[in-house]
């Protein structure tokens, strides 16, 4: 299987983080090539490659770059706030191959005529942050960053910035507020599209770690090569973080177009204890669930996931076997969003908390006969009609994301949810009962 972003670390398991190892393997040659190209040429190559953002939005990186407003200074921000439950791919890229990231940063900076970049890493990742910081310092020492990089006339500064524990900062406008020293509250789009009004209200490119990590390979081997890796419309590879009840959880660099059966049963080794597969979440906690009866032989592509009413998102695949209490799993997902809601928008702030309280009540044996209806009603208040892609009543997608687990529960496991209500031991209770 083709490896793009994990190839080097596989070949050098003990020292892939070192400058010397990276350079000996041809590292930074692509950055040198980028310095000899124009912005238009670089944007065109990346557009042609079909690279899409790996943070979850899956939007064309080349298109995103082409939207950057002409005002300068402009900034590049690398989003390493990886916090979507189930996702741990960027941690591996940061820890194991930090120079690949820095080379990608140089390419993205040159392509966007940016001279200052920030790498925002979540606060719970001190080890990856230390590795990247060391790599940045080594890059400065060897003239790859700083004034006149690699003997060119191009200046580039890179600063590693540590987050402090807030899922919402993975949302790009929240991340920019955070980087400005503010609460990590998302901004309204429009007017605050980062490409026009980003960091300090100046044009800003925000790209995910994995997206940036692909750039050296695309510049080195070309857009045609990148397109040829996959037989599907989604080009290149992507990192699937597989977790939950599989025998071999881990990050797997896979080519778009293989089936879920291949990923879960062949690559990740199948279900623990040879249990039955009950459901899986295809793209992080925000994605509606898939079930084996309907989706196991679907190809893993952006479009196939969307057609089936879910998304590939950040590539996090969370697998649940037949022993899983799906009401408890849904509650755990909803609780996450309730805790991480920034509180700006009423439907999200209030709705996620209500959903969690209802699910907790059902789990505690105090459910009411109206609870499933109530779950649907509150969900509808956060994301009208429970449509896919979700209709938004809020500034950012956090609120509608919380609805995915509830929607999946009601759609695929209604009987199990009803059983929780029917088994209620005590009625009536006040609606706040059992809340955290």
């Amino acid at each position, binding site marked *: 299987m083709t490896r793009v972003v994990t190839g080097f670390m596989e070949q050098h*398991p*003990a020292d*892939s*983080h070192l400058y010397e190892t990276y350079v000996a393997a041809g590292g930074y040659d692509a950055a040198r090539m980028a310095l000899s190209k124009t912005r238009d040429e670089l944007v065109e190559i990346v557009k042609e490659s079909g690279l899409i953002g790996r943070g979850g939005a899956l939007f064309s990186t080349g298109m995103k770059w082409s939207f950057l407003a002409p005002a300068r*200074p402009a900034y590049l921000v690398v989003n390493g706030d*990886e*916090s*979507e*439950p*189930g*996702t*741990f791919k*960027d*941690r*591996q890229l940061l*820890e*194991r191959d930090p120079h690949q990231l820095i080379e990608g940063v140089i390419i993205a900076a040159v392509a966007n005529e940016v001279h*200052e970049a920030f790498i925002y890493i*979540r*606060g*719970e990742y*001190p*080890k990856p*942050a*230390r590795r990247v*910081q060391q790599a940045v310092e080594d890059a400065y020492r060897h003239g790859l960053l700083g004034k006149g990089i690699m003997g060119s006339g191009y200046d580039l500064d890179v*600063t*590693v*910035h*540590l*987050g*402090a*524990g*807030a*899922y919402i900062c993975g949302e790009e406008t929240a991340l920019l507020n955070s*980087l*400005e*020293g*503010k*609460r*990590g509250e998302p901004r309204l789009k429009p007017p605050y599209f980062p490409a026009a009004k980003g960091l300090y209200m100046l044009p800003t490119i925000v790209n995910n770690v994995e997206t940036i990590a692909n750039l050296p390979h695309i510049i080195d081997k070309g857009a045609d090569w990148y397109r040829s890796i996959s037989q599907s419309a989604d080009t290149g590879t992507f990192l699937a*973080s597989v*977790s*939950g*009840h599989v025998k071999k*959880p*881990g*990050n797997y660099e896979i080519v778009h177009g293989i089936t879920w059966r291949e990923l879960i049963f062949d690559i990740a080794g199948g279900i623990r204890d040879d249990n039955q597969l009950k459901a899986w*979440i295809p793209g992080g*906690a925000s994605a509606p669930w898939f079930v084996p009866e309907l989706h196991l032989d679907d190809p893993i592509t952006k479009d196939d996931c969307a057609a089936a009413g879910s998304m590939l998102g950040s590539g*996090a695949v*969370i697998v649940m076997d037949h022993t*899983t209490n799906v009401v*408890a*799993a849904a509650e*755990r997902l909803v609780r*996450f969003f309730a*805790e*991480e809601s*920034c509180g700006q928008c009423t439907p999200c702030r209030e709705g996620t908390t209500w959903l969690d309280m209802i699910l907790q009540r059902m789990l505690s044996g105090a459910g009411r006969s109206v609870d499933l209806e109530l779950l649907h009603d509150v969900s509808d208040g956060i994301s009208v009609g429970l449509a896919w892609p979700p209709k938004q009543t809020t500034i950012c997608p956090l609120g509608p994301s919380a609805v995915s687990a509830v929607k999946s529960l009601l759609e695929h496991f209604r009987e199990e949810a009803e059983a929780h209500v029917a088994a209620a031991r005590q009625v009536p209770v006040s609606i706040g009962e059992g809340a955290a």
Partner: protein
Amino acid sequence: MSWSAETLDRATALISKYPDKRSAIMPLLYLAMKEDGYLTDEGMVRVAELTGVTPAQVQAVATFYVMYKREPQGRYLISVCTSISCFLMGADEVLEAIEQAAGVPAGESDGELAVEHAECIGACGGAPACLVNYELIEGITPEQGVELVAWLRNGNPDMINTDELQTLFGGRTSFDWAIREDNGAIGPYPAFPPLGTAADNGSALEPGRAS
């Protein structure tokens, strides 16, 4: 209490890295925690003075992020992930075992040791997982959680190193930990050299894969 000259120098260096000094609020809040052990009102006032905003603006930032602790945590903070992947792999039992062994309920501290639940810490392939002063342990069992608490209480280590933790108390990892980590944490805040919060004990561990 005022900050040491070394911390003030570090604050100045951090501020100079950003186009706008307000952007240094987040790293400076970590400096304030390192200086006082947790984030005090005085620390927030100092950060406000250094970044040219009001103390209320700094407080607004500090209260948004869970890693800025405005209560004393003690020397060790154990954060047990209870989000979906860890939950599916038994995280609730790990948290309960640690709470009981420590005699500290989640969200509290006894002055030496604090316990909390954490939302997804990006260690889902090695679930269940937890952090000690933000250094990671993957594949921890409830029994190992109990041993961890005893090890912290009895050994009173000055530095928390992730490889050492993983060797002693961990199991399955999200990916191969082949590269040894020398740095470690010296308090309940992230160990990151630009913040002066990382310590290095170099050769304490044999090279090679942990666990």
